[in-house]
């Protein structure tokens, strides 16, 4: 985190968030009292294994789920009570990129239309302006605007994820919640998308909440990492500190389990001597 951002006020502040599912007598505590602070332009990673509550956290921040306790503030305002046009406006500022680029695009809508639609919903510009902006967005994520009238099935997984990112950028949000945005992609394509996410972050001064299970991927993209385990954040820190000097046993366990090429080769060369 840079010096400047510590002086600025936070973009997102989550305090003591609780989300529970199931019967009230015996609830499943999916998110069990977590705090998150994200400053403008900052990328924060949320790492953990399946069932740890990371996706639930993202969905609660998007107001796609009801929270049981705690407070979520965006630009200093509590988002719990907002409804109607205020909620719509909030969702314009906070956008989401999903894991499955196949499932998150409408199969029956040309991809250019999908970009125009989000702008239409938020009453941005005229029809021609929206079309122009969609073409611009297409280009900014490395796609040829000539393909705007094609359907999702005509694109590869990586290209579809680019479209998903373009759609999230369409409303010029302050914060993007990216939930496992590269885990469904091939290795060689993964890095293209990661680099694209880095580039647009710098251009647009975006903040990210980057949700993923892959520590190395999160370390590449994020300035700060939160490790989540059983609904709680057990450790937070900068990637280099966290990786070289983990404090919590769960972080250590995660790090030991990562099949890292360098470490494996190092172990083997050590063993053969």
């Amino acid at each position, binding site marked *: 985190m840079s010096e400047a951002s510590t002086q600025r006020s936070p973009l997102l502040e989550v305090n003591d968030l609780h989300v529970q599912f199931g019967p009230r007598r015996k609830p499943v505590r999916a998110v069990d009292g977590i705090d998150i602070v994200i400053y403008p332009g900052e990328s924060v990673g949320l790492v953990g*294994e399946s069932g740890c509550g990371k996706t639930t956290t993202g969905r609660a921040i998007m107001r796609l789920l009801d929270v049981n306790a705690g407070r979520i503030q965006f630009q200093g305002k509590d988002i719990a009570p907002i409804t109607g046009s205020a909620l719509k406006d909030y969702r314009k500022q906070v956008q989401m990129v999903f894991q499955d680029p196949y499932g998150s695009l409408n199969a029956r809508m040309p991809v250019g239309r999908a970009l125009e639609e989000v702008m239409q919903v938020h009453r941005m510009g005229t029809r021609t302006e929206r079309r122009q902006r969609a073409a611009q967005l297409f280009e900014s994520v490395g796609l040829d605007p000539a393909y705007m009238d094609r359907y999702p099935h005509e694109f*590869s997984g990586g290209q579809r994820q680019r479209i998903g990112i373009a759609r999230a950028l369409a409303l010029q949000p302050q914060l993007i919640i990216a939930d496992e945005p590269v885990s469904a992609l091939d*290795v060689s394509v*993964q*890095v293209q998308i990661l680099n694209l996410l880095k580039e647009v972050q710098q251009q647009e001064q975006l903040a990210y909440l980057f949700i993923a299970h892959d520590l190395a991927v999160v370390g590449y993209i994020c300035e700060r990492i939160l490790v989540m385990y059983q609904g709680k954040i057990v450790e937070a820190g900068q990637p280099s500190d966290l990786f070289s000097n983990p404090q919590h046993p769960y972080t250590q366990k995660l790090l030991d389990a990562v099949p*890292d*090429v*360098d470490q*494996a*080769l190092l172990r083997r060369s050590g063993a053969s001597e």
Partner: protein
Amino acid sequence: MSESLLEVRDLRVYFGSRERPVRAVDGVSFDMREGETVALVGESGCGKSVTAMALSRLVPEPPGFYAGGEVLYRDQHVLQLDERSLRDIRGNEISYIFQDPGASLNPVFRIGYQIREAIQLHRPDDDAEHEVLELMQMVGMSDPQRAARAYPHELSGGMQQRAMIAMALACRPRVLIADEPTTALDVTIQAQILELLVKLQAELGMAMLLITHNLGLVAGVAHHVNVMYAGRIVESGETVDVLTRPRHPYTAGLLKAVPRLQGGDERLVGLEGTVPNPAGWPEGCRFAPRCPMRQPRCEAEDPPANRIAQGRYSRCHFWEQLNP
């Protein structure tokens, strides 16, 4: 080194029509020895899973057909065997575990029953009851008696995969083919399952074919690695040598594209373009359209498997310029 247990020579598995086939596996050769772990690594659509299925002639025909080459298992030509002889090999001598254990187990039968079935299929006279529990213990299922009575949905993904491994090992196969065995599992469970596979392989002296897209897994366990791209093996060799001194630009590019824990935020340079579609491989060198080293020759001339050293090959015209 001991003799080859399994030899694959110029294997070609195509799909669709004979006039205009989709050449999913297009001239793959490698061998496996007793006790050896061989990795087949590549991205989606490269043909690694079809190769695995072909090893005991499991590719459905049609739409698939064997367009050439051979699979030799202990001097038997697998692709020429009749159904009956194939049944003696499948599961008994060559066994498989797949990516999604939840989908591989039958949801309406108890775990113990399914493992017993795997034993009795090949050895109908055995008293399998005792053996089931032994197998479950071997794959590290705590409280096997309880787990044997459980239905698949009552077990975690890691436990389901252990049950699948127990079934795969029921007949003590000589060759275990593990097709993305840990991809669907969480990273800590993934490490446990991999450790288990390596341990069992050493104990039972099996040959293991590990099919994966994850270079980290390869680096951790494989003796020998075959890198697949567009239906072919583009580079092969001893694992540490291939991963530290790649002699094919695809391997080099893949290695550069993997984020590392100690890599910091230094910009990764990936490969341009996307994985090609099996329905139409590029002409000439199939990697040429994405290759940072490409020359006019690459688009005109398909590179052969150039021999670099004993057991070390690269399908690149210019392998000598990479990591000389």
